[in-house]
């Protein structure tokens, strides 16, 4: 049986309880990264559940929530559920996350990613639609670079997110976000010494180094 096809025959009450906890918390939550957010919430929920159980059993000793949450307790069954989320489910979680947060063009972005997901599934139903690690790296990049304009988003043949900011043939910045936290970029930009000429550069850098690498070529003049 494939990893994604495992079914759950127990724990439905726990799942329901977590969902109630998750949605209640999300009304006021400070959002972290999408996949990390879910993991943190599951751990907090599990800690709270254990505290409630202790409270019911004993009136003698109650540890602070934070201590319990990090006290090396056994892994919750939901850690396993996170592991069992398929790549497609992870992408859907990230799309949900984008729909909840209040940053510029997040809903437009969520809509576009949903379109890419559905189209990819339509054409290749048996393959992963979008690599979730690539999507996560792209969203993290946007959060770190809040001044960037809404990019054109497409998928690479490897199902990575490829973002493109292009306003002219010599103002072109395209980035494929790899699952490894690296990014493959292409820049077409005016040559500052010879404005009639176009510099064409490409390479692979870590996502963290992407803008420091690209900015000397003036990409922010058309991307932000």
């Amino acid at each position, binding site marked *: 049986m494939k990893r994604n096809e495992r079914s759950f025959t127990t724990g439905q009450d726990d799942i329901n309880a977590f969902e109630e906890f998750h949605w209640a918390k999300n009304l006021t939550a400070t959002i972290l990264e999408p996949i990390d957010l879910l993991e943190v919430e599951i751990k907090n929920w599990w800690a709270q559940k254990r505290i409630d159980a202790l409270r019911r059993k004993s009136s003698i000793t109650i540890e602070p929530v934070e201590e319990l949450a990090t006290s090396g307790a056994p892994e919750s069954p939901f850690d396993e559920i996170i592991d069992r989320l398929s790549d497609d489910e992870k992408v859907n979680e990230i799309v949900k996350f984008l729909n909840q947060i209040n940053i510029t063009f997040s809903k437009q972005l969520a809509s*576009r990613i949903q379109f*890419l997901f559905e*189209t*990819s599934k*339509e*054409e290749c139903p048996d393959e992963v639609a979008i690599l979730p690690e690539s999507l996560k790296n792209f969203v993290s990049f946007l959060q770190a670079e809040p001044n960037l304009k809404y990019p*054109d988003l*497409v*998928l*690479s*043949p*490897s199902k990575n997110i*490829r973002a*493109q900011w*292009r*306003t*002219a*043939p010599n103002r*072109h910045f*395209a980035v*494929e976000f790899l699952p490894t936290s690296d990014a*493959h*970029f*292409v820049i*077409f930009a005016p040559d500052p010494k010879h404005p009639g000429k*176009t510099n*064409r*550069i*490409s390479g692979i850098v870590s996502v963290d180094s992407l803008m420091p690498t690209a900015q000397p070529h003036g990409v922010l003049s058309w991307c932000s």
Partner: protein
Amino acid sequence: MKGDLLPDQDHICRYCSATKFTENGLITGAAFQLRPVDKYLSVNWLEFFQLADRHEQIREVRKVLRLKPGARAKLAVLNVEEIVNFVHTQSPDARKLRVLHEPIENDPSHSGIYGFGCDEHLIADLIAETVQETYPAKQTENAINETSFRK
């Protein structure tokens, strides 16, 4: 004949999933990137069909598409000489691409663009700039051509 260079004045078309073009319908370089298993970029040679009308050529290509086309997918048409010359003059290493006839079973017009090598993404983005026009990949009753102009 297999391995022959396609004539400069001839045209090729490339299947482009809707995941490869922008919300405005512009084909991006992602449509011309190789998959890790590819030795060359698969295309179809339009003049191979010896049909004068572009719509008839496209109709023949639709018949031999090996994958089920997506509802919004397109066929992008490019000129052989324009691709080769543009990439040669605009790529940092004066790359010389070659477009060769690569007939396969049930698809005698099948051809390949060779010479991607390193800087594959940059080469793919340059090729995307030479797209002349696009057609729906899926035959519909009112399938009409669209022309794509790049900024």
